[in-house]
């Protein structure tokens, strides 16, 4: 078992083997997972069951209902807005829409950032590969077998490491990002459903 210091040392060694691009990828990876984690916790559903039942629960229990996830808060806000709208005789649907707008933008937080990084990581990896190849060919050009230092093998390993890391960064981001996007789309549909249900209920 490696001690933490050794582990960090090895990690730094590996990163330096790939050159500067590796650190760029590392930072990109950090941001990617921060975004993914943030999105995951925001999009955690908390409650099972469909929207219709959720609204019923909130209408019957009122303040006693325990808040579990974003949908709960959205339903409460929508119900309040509906009451308000009724009190001032305004259009209920518009009022609810206005209240729910922040939720729409909430479920899409960091979406663009994740997509960007997923596209970017292989590109950065490719950049590292190209830089490594240039280094290798330069070394080959200068003096075939007497190249001092590890230019040739170093260039090749640089070229290989960065592409690898680029893909390692991008692929989980692509998959998990896709899953979270689906989740966000479902939330958007559910917000629309909340609006529809509450505004039609009052019309009855």
């Amino acid at each position, binding site marked *: 078992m490696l001690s933490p210091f050794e582990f960090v040392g090895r990690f730094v060694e590996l990163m330096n083997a790939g050159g500067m691009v590796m650190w760029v990828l590392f930072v990109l990876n950090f941001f990617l997972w921060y975004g993914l984690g943030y999105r995951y916790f925001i999009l955690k559903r908390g409650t099972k069951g469909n929207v219709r039942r959720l609204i019923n629960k909130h209408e019957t229990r009122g303040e006693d209902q325990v808040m579990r996830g974003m949908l709960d808060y959205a339903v409460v806000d929508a119900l309040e807005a509906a009451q308000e709208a009724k009190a001032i005789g305004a259009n209920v649907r518009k009022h609810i829409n206005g209240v729910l707008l*922040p939720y729409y933008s909430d479920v899409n937080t960091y979406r663009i950032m994740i997509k*960007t990084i997923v596209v970017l990581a292989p590109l950065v990896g490719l950049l590292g590969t190209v830089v490594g190849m240039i280094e290798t*060919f330069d070394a080959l050009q200068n003096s*075939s077998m007497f190249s*001092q230092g590890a230019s040739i093998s170093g260039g090749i390993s640089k070229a290989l490491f960065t592409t690898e890391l680029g893909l390692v960064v991008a692929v989980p981001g692509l998959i998990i990002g896709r899953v979270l996007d689906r989740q966000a789309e479902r939330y958007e549909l559910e917000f629309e459903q909340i609006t529809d249900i509450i505004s039609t209920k009052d019309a009855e």
Partner: protein
Amino acid sequence: MKAMIMKLFLPIFTLFALLTVTNASELDRAYQKEYAFLKAQKTELAKRLETDKVQQEKDLQLSKEKVEALQSTLLEVSKNAKTSSEKLEKLSKALADKEDNGGLVGNVVNQARLTLEPYGVKMGDDNKTTDVQKIQQALSVSTKLYGELSSIRNEKGEFYLPDGKKVEGDIVKVGNVAAYGISKDAAGALAPAGNGAYKLWNAVGSSDDAKAMYAKKPNDTVNIFVYENLDKEVDYVKEKTFVETMEDGGIIGYIIFALGLFGLVLLGLRVINLMKASTNVNDITQIVVEKVESGKKHEALDAIKGFEGSTARVIKSALRNIDKDREHVEDVIMENILNESTQIDRFGGFVLVIAAVAPLMGLLGTVTGMIETFDVITEFGTGDPKLLSGGISAALVTTMQGLIVAIPLLLIGNLLSGWAQGIKDSMEQNALHIVNLYEKYRG
């Protein structure tokens, strides 16, 4: 005529008849005599025949034996001849072998002489010493040389400094493949400078190694320049400067560079735009909400009069039309946001286009560079690896440039798009929020 023949015949006939009658008894006696004589002769002949036959058989026997004897002699002689010729063949083969070996030994001696010559070892090529002696001499000399070349030894010598100055000092030779130089001015690993001369290699930190090697106490790891021979000069590896790298990219490299600069400028403009549009959203909303909540909606418009920017304009227009029908107000807000979004989205698409085009340009540069390289190779052949690797290295530079331009533009461009979307969302939200509040407090 007939009468003449008749005249002759008649006397002859008469004579003959007389003779026959008178000599009859005499004839018989002669006959008997003749018979006895002939008989004796016959027996004598038969006897002779007999003896001759015996003699002949005897002779035949003798001859046969003689022939047989001769035949066996012939056989023996031919056998002898065969073995002799075999012997001869063997001998001539041995002679040829000997001659071959002689040539081979001569070649080996020659080769040894030629091999040893570059190391300054002379071998006598007079005819006094035999080949064996020559080989023995070559072997002993080679062994000594091998021992010398595979050891670390200190010599006096001279070498060139990186600035071209020739200095005298100690040279530590590591076998025949590397050397260190130590002089008063500088010390370090030596590299071939052509024609058997040395020059100081420009690597950092080899002076300690040189001193350690001189003292025969080498460090665990040493900086060393390993060379094949001293005849060919080795160039210093120059770090390529940014400008040189740019030059490798050629025209396309400069186009990419210009695109990148252009994209950066657009990004800067876009950031300024977005900052203008977004900075005061919360302030404006705060002020307006306070005024509306306290029922002074007309003062709200005055209060935000000093604010500039997209959000301010949207909210101002919302406040101006706030007394109208709700549908109408929303239409006004939407129209204003659409109007502002051209300003907010300005340059955004173009930056992303540049980000998409730059790698393609880089690829184009690489492909044209490769084509040039292969054209050169078609002309000069593949004998020099420098042609190929140098050309490819130069060609790849444009791909690198394309990616270097594309990556930041893509990243920042996308983030700014997200920001722009956020601003539009918050404008809509805040405007609707104010309208909702107004309706609430109006009622």
